[in-house]
């Protein structure tokens, strides 16, 4: 089997963000970077599938500046066989369709049976790229999977719906799947596998931007306005507890 896993490098979401100079995105300086959480589930599911079927070739793909190779090494240490880095310093500004176009242009003649990716990124969060890759390649796609089973070209998944309901969906390869949190338990790379990953192929290629046209741009990126009314309490823990209990007595009926 030939499997592609598309991952993204994102900042740690607990970071203190700042707006960049042209006010279109967050400032990329001084941030800690990691693999998009949703993509960790995509990598894990692909590695598990390889363990199940015995023979499969796992290519992990990531778009961005040179620094994304650090994140790709984690995917290689988790069990991907090779990495393809599409070098693009402007990736963070590109809209989902353009990113999907770059992935589709790479994947078009590679005959991937399955493409796994996260259902969305933690920073941009559009949830568009995976489905758009499928559409551009003429493949089927199923989004938001929380359960995956493969048997001889047939894929059975569960999709997560609103309110905790799941739908059971049957599809066939070639197929794009977008992964929801909780699909599996992503493994931590072991030290021997981290060492092995250093020897795996990690190819950097130039982006192919053909075939799609950008159709949108960010007018402005900004912090949400703080709503008035919300009280902020700071200080010593015992003092804070007294203040909070007093407030609950005054403002709610629950301590009657």
């Amino acid at each position, binding site marked *: 089997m030939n499997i592609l896993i598309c991952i993204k490098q994102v900042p740690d*979401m607990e970071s203190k*963000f700042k*707006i960049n100079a042209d006010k279109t*995105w*967050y400032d990329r300086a001084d941030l800690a970077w990691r693999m998009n959480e949703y993509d960790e589930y995509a990598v894990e599911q692909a590695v598990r599938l390889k363990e199940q079927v015995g023979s499969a070739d796992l290519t992990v793909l990531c778009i961005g500046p040179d620094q994304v190779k650090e994140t790709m090494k984690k995917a290689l240490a988790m069990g991907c066989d090779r990495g393809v880095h599409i070098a693009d310093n402007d990736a963070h500004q590109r809209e*989902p*369709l353009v990113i999907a176009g770059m992935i589709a242009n790479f994947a078009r003649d590679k005959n991937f049976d399955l493409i796994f990716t996260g*259902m969305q990124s*933690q920073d941009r*969060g*559009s*949830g568009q790229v995976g*489905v*758009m890759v499928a*559409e*551009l390649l003429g493949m*089927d*796609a199923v*989004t*938001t999977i929380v359960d995956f089973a493969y048997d001889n070209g047939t894929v059975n998944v*569960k*999709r*997560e*719906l*609103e309110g*905790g*309901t799941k*739908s*059971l969906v*049957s*599809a066939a390869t070639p197929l794009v799947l977008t992964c929801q949190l*909780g699909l599996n338990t992503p493994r931590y790379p072991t030290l021997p596998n981290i060492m092995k990953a250093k020897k795996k192929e990690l190819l950097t290629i130039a982006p192919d931007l053909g075939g799609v046209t950008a*159709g*949108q*741009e960010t*007018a*402005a*990126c*900004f*912090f*949400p306005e*703080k*709503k008035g*009314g*919300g*009280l*902020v*309490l*700071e200080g010593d823990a*015992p003092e*804070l*507890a007294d203040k*909070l*209990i007093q*407030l609950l007595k005054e*403002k*709610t*009926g*629950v*301590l009657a």
Partner: protein
Amino acid sequence: MKTLLVAEFREGKLRAEYTQLLAFARESQAEAAMFLVGSAADLPKFDGTLYLAEAVKHGEYSPAVHKQLLLDVIAREKPEQVVFLHSSYGWDLAPRVAVALKAAQVSEVIGVDGGLPVVPVCNAKLRRTIKAATATTVLTLQAGAFGLDDEPAGTPTVITVDTDAAGKVRCTGYEAAKIEGVDLTKANIIVSAGRGVGKPENVAMVQALAKALGGEYGASRPVVDAGWVEHSRQVGTTGSTVTPKLYVACGISGAIQHLAGMKKADFIVAINTDRDAPIGEVANVLVVADLKQFLPILTEKLQNR
């Protein structure tokens, strides 16, 4: 602006969230028609054109077929905007339509500012406004971001649509949400644990506070995914939507999906070390404190009251 709204249908029923689409159309003073793969026996209430395809024939989730039905209607209606809910149905179908139309898609719209859609960035810590340059724009609306103040009313003019398109992806059934365990929607007081509790052992502090307040304990998604708290206690779009008298969010940063599940609580207390956490947007009181220090003290004081 001519707008096509895409309503949803699941397990034989119209999804009530279609009213959020109507609210958005009303707010943007759009001339709205609606599209639904559903049933003539369960119609949305509004005065306008409804393009209706039968779910019995075309399935409730059959992306290639629904895409074709929708593209046929778009060719006929020629809307400037096609508006979906940002839901498991909407975020799955919208990009397929956007690619086919070569339309810009703007995901998870939470509002409109100066005529431009506003979307969240980085778990809602930041926002963006977006300028789309394509003839048609595809939008998905965040759950709960738009709402009608009144009950929906009216009778649509139904135009039946059909296609011979077929797809290989099939929905074969549904698995109901597990209903064993607690029903948080009935609780008056809920104390929830978020990622900020740090370790599974620390969930006990949240449970103790809930008990001292005479309420139930809940959790945000990461805590449930990690297996520290069972799913029936998850608050948010994929768990329970709750409206207690008091909601205490412990170490919950306030991801949109969580806020959607609890922001209608009467009184919200957030306890967090980060005073800029998005939970502060909906909280009546934000206590800036370390949970491990603060929760045991608060619990003890409540018990000795």
